[in-house]
């Protein structure tokens, strides 16, 4: 397998992981919205309510930065990262 193919395989792996986490917090947990709302979540809000106000939104922010860093590492590993500016 060429360097480029290996790079793409790893990038696809990262994509799958990112989309899996995204799926859990954008769709998965809301399948059980009513049940989860019985539980008290962070700061004392009902759990599902908290996810819709802050939780899922905040997790998406962190997820994107985490994804960007991981992808940069993959690019560096194969020597595909851009030089210079940020």
């Amino acid at each position, binding site marked *: 397998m060429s360097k480029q193919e290996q790079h793409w395989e790893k990038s696809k792996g990262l994509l799958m992981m*990112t989309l899996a986490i995204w799926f859990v917090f954008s769709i998965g947990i809301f399948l*059980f919205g009513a049940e989860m*709302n019985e539980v008290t979540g962070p700061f004392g809000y009902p759990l599902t309510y908290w996810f819709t*106000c802050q939780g899922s939104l905040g997790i998406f922010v962190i997820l994107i930065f985490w994804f960007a860093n991981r992808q940069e590492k993959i690019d560096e590993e194969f020597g595909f990262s851009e030089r210079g500016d940020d």
Partner: protein
Amino acid sequence: MLKGNFIDNLPKVYGIYTGGFLGFIIIMSIGEQMGMSAKAIGICFVAFTVAIYAIIGYLSRTAQADAYYVAGRQVPTVFNGMATAADWMSGASFVAMAGGIYFKGYGYMALLVGWTGGYVLVASLLAPYLRKFGCYTVPDFIGTRYGGNLSRFMAVVVLTVASFTYVTAQINATGTIASVALDIPFQYAVYVGLISILLCSMLGGMRGVTWTQVAQYIVLIIAYLLPVFWISNKIGAGFFPHFMLADEVSRIAELEAQFGFVKNSAENLKEVPKGLAGITKAHSAVNATPWAFISLALAMMMGTASLPHVMMRYFTTPSVKAARKSVGWSLFFIFLLYSSAPMLATLSKLSLMDPTLPTGIIGKSITDVQAIDWYQNWNAANLMFVSDFNGNGTLELNEFFMGGKAVVLATPEIAGLPYVISGLVAAGGMAAAMSTADGLILAIANAISHDVYYKIIDPKAETAKRLVVARVLLVVIGFAGATIAALEIQGILGSVIWAFDFAMSGLFFPLVLGVWWKRANKEGAIAGMFLGLVSGAAYLVWVRTGGSGFLGITQLTFGIFGSAVSLVSMVVVSLMTSEPSAATQRMVDEVRVPSGRSIIGKQ
């Protein structure tokens, strides 16, 4: 003046700007103390901020295609994040979102999840790859990746349908705010709003829009957060509302149980002015089925990833990795406002509902409520209404009605904040609506000038001529949007959601598969865009004209049907026709590698 070290000086420039704006707020509040009228404060706020945007727009003027279309590809990640956040958060987000949460509760919160979760798709599936491609517009990517004028043209059609649906709502919002703040009739205010919008974008194109959007973000976020924190402190709910409103949320649930949700008879509801709603849904309880919630969130997420005015912001970053990071910053700046909207809704609702608070009106006598100053003001503005349906002389929960916009616009006044805050909120709403309208009008005008005029009609046109065409189109599209907005056909929020559905019906899969599926070819993409858009639109018309729909897909989520048709037709047609040429496949390989030259033109 704005060359070279301007980029290095950005933090300083916008730091001074922010300080200046805060100083302006202080001057206005001193003016209020000294007896300046509420109307004068409102006019000052809107006029001052719009004048600043116009100056930035003028300073950013350019005669270069690269600067006009992609701001010279040198916008740093954090500033691009702010610009995207302003581009993204429309008048609807600013004025109507807290109201939506207030009245519809959990079912509406799907929009919050959808409008943020979509950025994960933008960051991981599209933005870095389209940045590597080096295109000027979204149809530029479709046209080059799949080849042929027809695919390029179809992409322009989808883009125009989605963006135009969206932009009329934004011009409408600028008109509403301008008409209230400047006290002129709506039909004229719409054009005042339009001219303000064009001042930002006409001379500098994407460069002008970028630097005004950063300035607009600063205004709108201050205008949104300041009242939320102030109200929360004033009513003693906690100095940092986001972490401290759990007691208030449970108190609302308690009061809801105590008052009960009484259903009004159709006859009584006839009395209520159009557009106002009562509190009929629980504040923090789950009041929608999982599928209703998930389908709306999913439609908004896929729509986010297909809307061209957002995607083209990531064409302006200096590199591919900057594009990825910039998506994260965008969502962070959006998060600051979105996570505050539910808090504002909570504070607003509790301060009216709780009989133990001095601002509470439920349970008081109707005549007392009707005598309150702010009630009379907002009743006159057609945003508040009470009526004694059961004739007991006391205001019940089901006898109080309010417009969605009033949550943002009226809460500062109800909580007893000085009028300067209301002026600030008007400036914030104007900034939010203007920045989104700018991005959208530019997206349409650029797609038509670059993809239809330059790439299809006259590929030999000189830069100067191309930019004249681009600017003429900007004005024409702006006026078309304003003319339709002046007709006041539909509400702000409804048309915003439709825009997402149109965009995802026609563009989501052609964009994503263009990067992630090498086998996707021209015929497949054309079929995907055409059938996706047509079937989505047909579904919308069918449901609107009394059709029952299926699988619980409503007029707000018709994009799920449209994009499913798009996916199936694109895959089937691609597999039935020959695979893309070796050159195209090499191009896709190159797009997947961040380093090296961009596919189109110079880096």
